[in-house]
């Protein structure tokens, strides 16, 4: 089984650190979501893994070897970096044939991936006539060409229509289920939440989190319960007694932070408080991510007060 190992990876561009001491592993059989705002270093990291850029220090290996030392790499690693990276005057089929030839992949496989990516009908049109969504599909077809055990996709759903987004989500899950190591970058939380098992989160080139999706959400959010009753006075008294802090909302509901329905339901039943509505709020990846980056922003952002003092 092949994994991607990034160790103390650093890349400087003109004194600015795009990637700063990054260490993480992308394991087979899982989809690893690669999260971070634009400019956090996700694409740079992928370029370093693929040997397109040279690291300032540190290493990135696939199955223990630097990418450039892999023979016929398309048979082992499939990557989509930039859907625009193609010669526009070529047809989609020729684009894939050229790539297939480098790794002696049979021409039949080109037809297969064109079919899989849903662009078989446009295969003989020039790439410059493709929409962004079609170019993304062509890029994904290219990544799948060699049936690789490692797949890296940079913002694959960029430009895809809703149908395409569902397709890519399913496909990514399936690739991991087949035992491949899959790294998918995105700056969209809900999308990442829909397919990732594991998360690697970057901020300003540094590793902010490398953890399972569930664990990440649990660590950075608190559960919450919303409920409605006919007896507001007793409800708040009973809950307060048990150490909860219910807050009344404008719409007549109560919100209890740090509680689960399993905590609140039995309590109110025991006290005989009539409940009209009781619902747990599932914390989202977005909440967790914002909580993480809020802490990080406080830590790294220049302090406005200091600036004022200087003046």
């Amino acid at each position, binding site marked *: 089984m092949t994994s991607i190992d990034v160790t103390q990876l650093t890349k400087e561009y003109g004194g600015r650190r795009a990637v700063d001491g990054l260490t993480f592993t992308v394991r087979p059989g899982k989809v690893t979501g690669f999260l971070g705002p634009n400019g956090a270093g996700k694409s740079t990291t992928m370029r370093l893994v*693929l040997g397109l850029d040279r690291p300032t220090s540190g290493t990135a290996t696939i199955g223990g070897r630097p*990418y450039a030392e*892999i023979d*016929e790499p398309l048979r082992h690693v499939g990557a989509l970096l*930039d859907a625009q990276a193609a010669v526009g005057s*070529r047809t989609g089929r020729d684009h894939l044939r050229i790539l297939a030839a*480098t790794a002696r992949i049979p021409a039949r496989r080109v037809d297969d991936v064109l079919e899989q990516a849903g662009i078989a009908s446009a295969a003989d049109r020039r790439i410059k006539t493709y929409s962004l969504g079609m170019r993304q599909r062509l890029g994904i077809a290219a990544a799948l060409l060699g049936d690789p055990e490692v797949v890296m996709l940079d913002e694959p759903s960029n430009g895809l229509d809703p149908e395409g987004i569902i397709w890519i989500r399913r496909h990514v899950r399936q690739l991991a289920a087949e035992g491949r190591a899959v790294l998918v970058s995105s700056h969209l939380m809900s999308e990442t939440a829909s397919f990732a098992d594991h998360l690697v989160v970057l901020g300003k080139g540094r590793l902010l989190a490398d953890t399972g999706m569930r664990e990440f959400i649990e660590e950075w959010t608190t559960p919450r319960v919303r409920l409605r009753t006919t007896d507001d006075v007793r409800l708040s008294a009973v809950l307060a007694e048990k150490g909860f802090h219910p807050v009344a909302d404008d719409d007549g509901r109560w919100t209890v932070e740090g509680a689960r329905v399993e905590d609140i339901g039995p309590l109110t039943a025991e006290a005989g408080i009539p409940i009209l509505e009781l619902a747990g709020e599932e914390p989202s990846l977005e909440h967790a991510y914002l909580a993480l980056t809020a802490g990080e922003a406080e830590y790294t952002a220049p302090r406005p007060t200091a600036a004022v003092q200087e003046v």
Partner: protein
Amino acid sequence: MSSFAPVLHSEWLKIRSVRSQCLALAAVLVSTTAFSVLMCATLSAEDTSEAGFDPVRASFFGLNFGQIAAICFGSLAVAGEYRNGAVLVSLTAVPRRGLFYTAKLTVVGLLALAVGLLTSATCFVLGQAALGDLGVGIGEPGALRSVVGCGVYLALITLFAAGLAAVLRSAPAVMGFLIPFLLMLSFVLGDVSEGGGWVDFLPDRAGQQILLQNPDGPLNPWTGTGVLVLWVAAALWVGGRRLMRRDA
């Protein structure tokens, strides 16, 4: 290295699948032949009776036009990789950059040589026929050398453009530099500095010595081609360094 053949195949498909590159290659044959035959067919008695008249050279007159097409082909084949960042995908498929560069230059160079030799043979046969009684056969001293030399010259000019394209990463930039440099510079300076000098060491001047029956400059056919080879090697070396050292 075991993986050279697949990469060669891939580079061959790259050229075959882009219309502009095929057209540029076809234009080498068509324009060189057309202008050569036109020249041979329209020479006046005054021209042909001059002391230095060289019937073999006359049938390669169109080379000045054909080499523009060769420059276009060489620069498009390499610089095409840098439009829209297509080279990212190419280098992901072939991460050994030396292998990638060598394979591309091999395919570009061999294609240019094949088309160049076909061009020069066609020019010679049709040109000499157009000259009528003044025409010579391939047995004429220097004729075979000129025919082969013209093909080699076109291949070398193509590689020169390819090497510069690896440096400049833009086909228009290569054409904008090389076409005036090769055509106008030596044309203008050639008349100014009569009797040799550094002008004779310019790539086109040096490389075209091989076409002449009686070269009178400081370079003979073989040293002239050698000088052109040095120019080409320098361009390829700088282009190769840029590819190997820099981030893609």
